[in-house]
């Protein structure tokens, strides 16, 4: 090394020149510049990210690059945007739908179309709120995912359906978290069986139904009607009924029994159409019931009419019978009273009014009978009265009624003759008495003479 070189080295000139040569080479060769630029580019962009100039500078090339990329391979952009656009579209639809539904009830309430009237009738018949009936007919929904969770330990018993929302999310953890939240809700509300019944998961709805040993968590899409909960509860009850022991003893087994999985899979088939079927089903069940009720009602009305007619006939028959019986007078009959009331006048010698009523079909308590005694002047009663007064009649004497007159015929002794004469003289008999056929017996001279006073 020459002294000059050594001197230059000592002064640092030699090194500077080497550096300068290297720098010059790197500036001159683009390939050499690239690593340098790449090293500082991210920081440079980051540093200028708030700067409008940077955005403006990048706008055109980025736009152009995107355009060319889409032109060349549209699928790549679709794939990139799908995870974002899918939920965004669904959310937008769900929100629009919900917003529209807010005013649905009012607008439908104001409407008087035939369809609305039919739905109103259905709401009235089934006892379901009108709005819900409308929702059933107008909306669609589906059960996207169903999880059956052990109530005691929060372990997932089985799961069916698509992995909604976060496909990577561990369903065991979800099941446990739901159980923890249920416990938290129960503790917060102070109710032992506190229940998280539903929650919104973005555009989806989570329903939780709790059974004795297991919880059923369902992720639903759309707007399920509240009555679906009843159907689902029934389903959960069936699951408990058929697999109660398994659910109770579940401690994290690997595979749930196939019938249990099948039952859970049935839930996935629930959709608006099924529900509409379910809604239509009540009329099918209600139809025969209504028919039966109608028939029963008609039967009751018929029975009531028949009974009324029968009572009237029975009453008329009684009236006719009483009219035909001597010594009894129909004073007043009140058939509309409960029980019917009947007031009679009856001679003590007439037939028994109670017997007459019973023979007409009235039992005890069927009729309120009131009888006032009186003296009848009817020939039959006059006859009875006379016979009673003259009793005992001699064997050879007959007393009959003929053409409105009492006919006494036969033979009697003198004593009876006197008795008859006395009676006819003092008693008031309102019918003529014919004694032309009555003869006195011939008394023998040996007959004892009985003083008139003793006789």
């Amino acid at each position, binding site marked *: 090394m020459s002294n000059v070189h050594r001197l230059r080295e000592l002064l640092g000139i030699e090194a500077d020149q080497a550096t300068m040569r290297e720098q010059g080479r790197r500036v001159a060769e683009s390939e050499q510049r690239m690593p340098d630029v790449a090293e500082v580019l991210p920081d440079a962009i980051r540093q200028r990210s708030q700067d409008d100039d940077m955005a403006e500078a990048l706008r055109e090339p980025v736009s152009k690059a995107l355009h060319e990329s889409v032109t060349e391979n549209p699928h790549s952009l679709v794939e990139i945007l799908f995870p974002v656009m899918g939920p965004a579209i669904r959310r937008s639809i769900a929100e629009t739908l919900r917003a529209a539904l807010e005013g649905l009830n009012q607008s439908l309430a104001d409407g008087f179309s035939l369809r609305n009237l039919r739905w109103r009738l259905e709401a009235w018949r089934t006892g379901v709120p009108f709005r819900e009936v409308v929702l059933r007919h107008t909306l669609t929904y589906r059960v996207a995912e169903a999880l059956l969770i*052990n109530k*005691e*330990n*929060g*372990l*997932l018993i089985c799961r069916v359906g698509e992995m909604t929302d976060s496909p*990577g*999310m*561990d369903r*065991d*953890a979800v099941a*446990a*978290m739901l159980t*923890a*939240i249920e*416990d*938290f809700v*129960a*503790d917060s509300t102070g109710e032992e069986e506190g229940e998280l019944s539903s929650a919104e998961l973005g555009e989806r709805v989570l329903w939780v139904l709790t059974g004795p040993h297991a919880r059923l968590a369902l992720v639903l899409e759309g707007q399920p009607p509240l009555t679906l909960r009843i159907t689902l509860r029934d389903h959960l009850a069936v699951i408990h009924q058929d697999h109660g022991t398994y659910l109770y*003893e579940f*401690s*994290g*087994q*690997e595979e749930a029994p196939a019938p249990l999985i099948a039952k859970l899979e049935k839930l996935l088939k629930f959709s608006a159409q099924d529900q509409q079927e379910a809604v239509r089903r009540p009329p099918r069940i209600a139809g025969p019931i209504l028919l039966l009720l109608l028939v029963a009602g008609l039967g009751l009305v018929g029975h009531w009419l028949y009974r009324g007619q029968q009572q009237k006939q029975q009453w008329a028959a009684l009236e006719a019978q009483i009219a035909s019986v001597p010594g009894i007078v129909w004073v007043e009959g009140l058939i509309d009273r409960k029980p019917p009331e009947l007031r009679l006048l009856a001679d003590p010698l007439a037939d028994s009014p109670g017997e007459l009523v019973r023979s007409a079909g009235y039992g005890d308590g069927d009729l309120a009978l009131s009888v006032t005694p009186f003296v009848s002047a009817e020939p039959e009663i006059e006859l009875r009265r006379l016979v009673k007064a003259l009793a005992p009649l001699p064997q050879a004497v007959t007393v009959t009624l003929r053409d409105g007159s009492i006919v006494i015929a036969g033979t009697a002794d003198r004593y009876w003759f006197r008795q008859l004469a006395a009676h006819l003289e003092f008693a008031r008999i309102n019918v003529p008495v014919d004694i032309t056929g009555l003869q006195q017996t011939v008394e023998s001279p040996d007959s004892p003479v009985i003083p008139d006073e003793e006789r």
Partner: protein
Amino acid sequence: MKSVKVCILGDFAVGKTSLVRRFVDEAFSERYLTTVGVKIDTKTVHPEGAEPIKLVLWDVAGADELSALQTSYVRGSAGFILVCDLTRRETLTTATKLKSEVAAQFGPVPWCLFANKNDLTEEREIDDMALSELTEDGWIVHTTSAKTGFNVESAVLALASRLSIDAGRSP
């Protein structure tokens, strides 16, 4: 794969959540821990000579005694992990208390003690002697460090092995 529920219990700030974070597959948002009082994570482990088993870990918020809510969280656990902080003696007392409470409530359940923060050697208040005494009393003790990861995996695996054996016995 069989799943089992495992609860993690211990005093405040003993490092339960940090321990879980050390070995879980996937972590839920930790907001749940402050809101609901429990954080759920899962971990699939492969114990030697046994079927793989999935641990559903319930990281129960720190407390020196079990509230009604925390008791409900512990219900149905196949096993539990007690955690104490080697730099705070009182956390071992809490762990002992919690163990008694769980035993009283739920009967014999497999468990073990993680004596955490083993890395803070200078600040230790619970020495090896105390831990040995516990071991002599039948405790299964693992010294761990959530910070360095020391012994965490192996300690969990040890519990999982016991649970796997128990699970094999159950239906």
